């Protein structure tokens, strides 16, 4: 409260009417929620074939209260394999799935049901009964505004303190609309294996995935604030069908003569994806009720009509070959080559093919004759080196390279009547030289096993270079007047070490297995086309807060560096371009204030078992990554902020403060190092304790396996980050590490029972 008054956001007099309420919005929005999963499976086989069938049911009521956030899935699997002839095998795996999901809006700076948990004021209760409304809400009701009520007729609160904030009581959204989706999938593959001669296998495999997707969104009329309201109901429904298939034919030839082992593989693949969708909707229904939330019941004066639909095709063709050779299990060589072709919607015809070779070498030192075979110390030692290239079209789609005439709006040259003429313009500047992006990885590694395979150790040094990086939305000059087609703009280099260490042993009935891994990463943009200075990334508060620039990590946080808070005034002093300090930085002083890419990632797994009990602990963490806390909107000063800005703020008593005085208003501050936090964390993702019923009991109840287990998922988190969850706090590639309010990973307690017949 003092923070709001001191930061000028809310006047002191505003609080005179406060009734002493303190609302924990976290409790209002979230609840412990059950998740159920049931499965049943069947398996059998003969000498000619085998069959596996299973049925799964899963229901996950999300942690948001009520049914607005729920996920159901039913799936059935059927796998068969059958030897038709000695030289011909048929196999097929198929899964049929039904998904049903109700969702909650999240991860948008304007509309989020999650972020208000942090930003709403605690002074306002969740609901008011209809006969006890505060005057500002009563005034709205009296004037015919539709405020949202719960099932008992009580009104969800509209804060009097935060008039004009984008964040509103999350229940207003949950109770006034719904977003649903339900999908059916059939996917699987069917393959024939031919063995016409010894050592040669020819495989022909058809993969398929048929999808039927439906979604609908309904928002009833509501009023919350002057900027968050809707005066008529809106709907949007989408029906989409997708057919995907992939045909692969390849042959495998294996030959061993003495110590020479050879494997040859060659094949081709062709895939095709067809997606058809139709979306319809609009604003204005015959009656504002969910039973009318279908395009059929749009009112005659409905507006913002949505009528969209298209067929989108994607195809891909590849040829590949691989040769593997080893001599006496000591020296290994593998060489491969693949050629990929993209369709015309991705790359121009002349550049459609990309060729990607790879080579790897290995030396198992411990298999050498001169190596002390029966050593108690070193059980195995292997040296590896590899080099290879991969291609990517980086999500290109929809003919981005091509310059054609497309529609842009329509204009009526009649002052009073809608006599529209469609507008037509060239779609982009065009780039007929657009080609595959190539990533080249070089790796050197050692695998080592010691003490009778009890200790395993491996280490790698890797360099991954991405060349001809495909970048969209660049600007060769602002005078160009049109969208610029994607270009192969730059190179990125990632390099680092990877280490893995494990220890496994057994002491009587007590078995244990501990393993840890750690990887370092150094990421840098090594080249950017001279026509591009810096590519703008994630946009927040009307500023670019991440950027892609030569000599920096990809999508680093760009902002102002706060040097310290001036003890005399409480104003932050920023570091200017020339190193001097300034109270009013200019855009030239923008600099790197952090990066969402961790220097180190690590993980730890512990498996313990004693007789029929077992315990698994699994954790992971990062070090050296930062989080840009995008929870403060500069245009909404009345929203609550992270407590640290209040408790560590400059005051006349606390002049050596970490953060600026609370009434400091300049927006630079919310794009400065003051909103960048250490995002390092360690999280225990799972602790699972299990018990398998002893065989002697099982025989009595005619079951082959019964397992009871309990697990705590995501329960323990160690971090200095003051936001909700450092792990999920990221948004898209360009916004890596930018936290604008996302769904935290749920703390889950699972109790399970597995029964095998």
């Amino acid at each position, binding site marked *: 409260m003092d923070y709001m008054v001191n930061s000028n956001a809310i006047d002191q007099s505003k609080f005179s009417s406060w009734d002493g309420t303190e609302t924990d919005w976290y409790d209002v929005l979230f609840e412990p929620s059950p998740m159920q999963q049931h499965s049943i499976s069947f398996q059998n086989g003969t000498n000619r074939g085998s069959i596996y069938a299973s049925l799964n049911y899963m229901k996950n009521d999300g942690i948001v209260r009520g049914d607005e956030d729920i996920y159901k899935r039913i799936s059935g699997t059927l796998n068969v394999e059958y030897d038709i002839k000695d030289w011909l095998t048929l196999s097929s795996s198929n899964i049929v799935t039904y998904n049903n999901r109700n969702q909650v809006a999240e991860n948008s700076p304007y509309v989020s049901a999650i972020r208000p948990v942090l930003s709403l004021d605690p002074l306002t209760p969740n609901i008011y009964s209809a006969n006890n409304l505060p*005057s500002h809400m009563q005034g709205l009701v009296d004037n015919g505004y539709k405020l949202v009520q719960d099932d008992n007729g009580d009104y969800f609160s509209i804060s009097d303190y935060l008039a004009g904030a984008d964040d509103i009581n999350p229940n207003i959204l949950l109770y006034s609309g719904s977003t649903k989706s339900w999908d059916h999938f059939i996917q699987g593959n069917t393959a024939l294996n031919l063995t016409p001669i010894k050592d040669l296998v020819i495989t022909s495999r058809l993969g398929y995935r048929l999808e039927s997707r439906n979604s609908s969104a309904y928002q009833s009329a509501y009023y919350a604030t*002057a900027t968050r309201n809707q005066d008529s109901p809106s709907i949007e429904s989408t029906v989409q069908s997708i057919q995907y298939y992939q045909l692969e034919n390849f042959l495998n030839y294996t030959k061993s003569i003495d110590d020479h082992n050879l494997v040859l593989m060659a094949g081709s693949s062709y895939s095709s994806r067809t997606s058809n969708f139709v979306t319809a909707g609009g604003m204005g229904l015959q009656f504002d009720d969910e039973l009318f939330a279908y395009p059929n019941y749009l009112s005659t004066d409905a507006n913002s009509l949505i009528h969209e639909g298209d067929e989108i095709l994607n195809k891909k063709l590849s040829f590949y070959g691989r040769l593997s050779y080893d001599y006496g299990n000591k020296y290994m060589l593998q060489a491969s080559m693949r050629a990929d072709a993209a369709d015309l919607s991705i790359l121009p015809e002349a550049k459609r093919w990309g060729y990607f070779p790879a080579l790897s070498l290995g030396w198992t030192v411990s298999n050498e004759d001169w190596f002390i075979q029966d050593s108690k110390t070193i059980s195995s030692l292997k040296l590896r080196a590899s080099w290879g290239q991969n291609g990517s079209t980086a999500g290109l789609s929809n003919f981005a390279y091509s310059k054609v005439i*497309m529609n842009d709006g329509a204009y009526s040259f009649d002052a009073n009547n809608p006599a529209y003429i469609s507008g037509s313009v060239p779609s982009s500047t065009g780039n007929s030289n657009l080609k595959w992006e190539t990533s080249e990885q070089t790796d050197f590694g050692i695998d080592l096993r010691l003490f009778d395979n009890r200790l395993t150790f491996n280490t790698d040094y890797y360099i991954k270079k991405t060349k001809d990086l495909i970048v969209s939305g660049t600007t060769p*000059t602002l*005078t160009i*007047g049109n969208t610029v087609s994607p270009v192969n703009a730059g190179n990125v280099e990632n390099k680092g070490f990877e280490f893995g260490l494990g220890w496994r042993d057994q002491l009587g009935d007590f078995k244990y297995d501990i393993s840890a891994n750690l990887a370092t990463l150094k990421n840098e943009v090594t080249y950017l086309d001279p026509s591009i200075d810096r590519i703008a990334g994630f946009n927040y508060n*009307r500023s670019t807060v991440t950027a892609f620039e030569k000599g920096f990590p990809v999508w680093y946080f760009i902002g102002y560096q706060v040097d310290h808070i001036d003890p005399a005034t409480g104003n932050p002093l920023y570091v200017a371009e020339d190193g001097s300090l300034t109270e009013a930085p200019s855009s030239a002083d923008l600099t790197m204030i952090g990066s969402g890419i961790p220097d180190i990632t690590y993980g730890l797994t512990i498996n313990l078992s004693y007789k029929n009990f077992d315990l698994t602990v699994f954790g992971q963490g990062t070090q050296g990554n930062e989080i840009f806390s995008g929870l403060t909107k500069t245009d909404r*000063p009345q929203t609550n902020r992270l407590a640290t800005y209040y408790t560590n703020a400059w005051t006349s008593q606390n002049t050596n403060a970490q953060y600026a005085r609370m009434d400091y208003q300049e927006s630079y501050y919310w794009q400065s190092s003051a909103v960048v936090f250490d995002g390092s964390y360690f999280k225990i993702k799972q602790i699972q304790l299990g018990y398998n019923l002893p065989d002697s009991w099982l025989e009595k109840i005619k079951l082959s396996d019964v397992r009871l287990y309990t697990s705590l998922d995501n329960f323990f988190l160690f971090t200095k980050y003051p936001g909700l969850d450092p792990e999920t706090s990221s948004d898209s590639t360009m916004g890596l590490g930018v936290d604008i309010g996302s769904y935290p990973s749920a703390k889950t307690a699972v109790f399970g029972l597995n029964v095998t017949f």
Partner: protein
Amino acid sequence: MKSKLIIIVSIVLIIMGFYSCEDQLDIEQHGVRDVSNFYKTDEQCLEGLAAIYYQIETSWRNNDFFITASLADDAYPGGGARGNDVNLEEMNEFRHNANNGRVSELFVLYYTTIYRCKMLISRTDIENGSSTQKRCVAEAQVIRAFTYLRLVSFFGEVPLIAEELSGDFARPSASLSEIYSQIELDLNNAIASGALLEKENASSQLVNVSKQLAQAVLGKAYVYESTFTNVDKWTEARQALNAVISSGKYELFEGDYLDIFHYGGRFSTESMFETNRLFDSQNLAMDRSLTRLGWRKDRFKPDQLEVTQSTGLTFCANESYGFMNPTRELYKAFEEMEGEDGYRLNQVMISYKQLNEMPLQIGDGNYVYGNAGYFPLKFMTQASERVARNTYATNYMLFRYAEVLLLAAEAELPEHGGSQAKVDEYVNMIKARAGIANQPGNYTLEDIQKEKRLELCFECTRYPDLVRWGIAAQVLADKGKQVPLLYGLYDGSDNSNQKFTDTDGYNISWYETSGTGFQTKHEFLPIPQEELNVNKQISQHEGW
């Protein structure tokens, strides 16, 4: 066995051969046409022209209006609170630099229009084209000239791109005289083509740019060239502007002054160039800037909003964000000329005192940011113009006859070789319509400056006018050093936190910015840093 093997292998090979046909990858693009033979038929040229008007309709106001009014002493950017639009605040306080996001947005905006005009002009074969095709090209020439005039008056020397760019796209800046020559060439070509449309009489409506608009823009270009550079084109200016006046196709609007800028008075007798937004719920060409131009209604007592609406005043739109509030200086200038009950003043803005009587009061503890007690009406988005959510049928006024009269008055000043009688005639026409009758005349440049400040406030002319008249440094010396926060009527109370002052009877807390007022370099906006970074041939204006 052998034969069976051969059959199997050949079947497999046939299958592989069948689908590996590369032409499966030749997917056709939907909903587009070939660019190489476009702009060849009447329909195609009209579509190219529609794309130009559509872009102006949907995207000009957001930067063209907001930036030019913020730079001048017309408006405080306002919004919900400080930081709501950092780029505009920088400009309003003369703290902007080449990295300001809106500087590059404005630059890109104008060049996008120019690109669309250029495609139509350069790809249409007017030698052999139909009259429609000739007209489309002539309209594109007028709009291109109009856009370059905007560019040169706000940015000064900029690249002049008349041909289609390819390969190395970057171009150096052209001199002011080269740019004015291009503007005048385009307009003279368009006028000479005889293809431009004309209104039948003053009360008929025309959406397309007319021959008279071409003449008016030409006259404006000559006036700007004569004042921005050291050449004397006053004779040409008078000739072009008087041609518009004597055509009789335009007259000052005699209805409610406020209607000129709103749905009620669309394509009025004095409208020469405005975008056409129909009241049509099925075509919602959205311009989000319109929602920013309503008042910050959530700062008022909510239970009074409806009461005020029922007073009959055509009232403010609901989804509104409170940007662009008239400055105290603008109000004072009106008051000095017309008194506080002046007709035009009360059509252009409404004071908080007037609102308070309705009654409409700022909520307890609330404040309106960037407001000195004056709320806009001239361009305020009206509730009655609402077509659908976030969509309003408010046209954007780009050129009107009042500006022609005031430009002509300036060109007719005796020191420019014109006739004082015409100066007085033109200025008195403006004054009479504003309700200021029976004025003595003998107007000087200073009188024209005062009249134009009021008549054309918020219409993108104030800032270049101040610069070319050489009075910017004096008039804007203290602009943007303080921003008002309006808490209500001054009642003598004080809150030590806010340091309220009695400003014309309003309880205002003045926020001190780090602005330094107008400096010489502010005559023009800087070339955007983004352009300097990629275009090695261009150089920054002096001082930036």
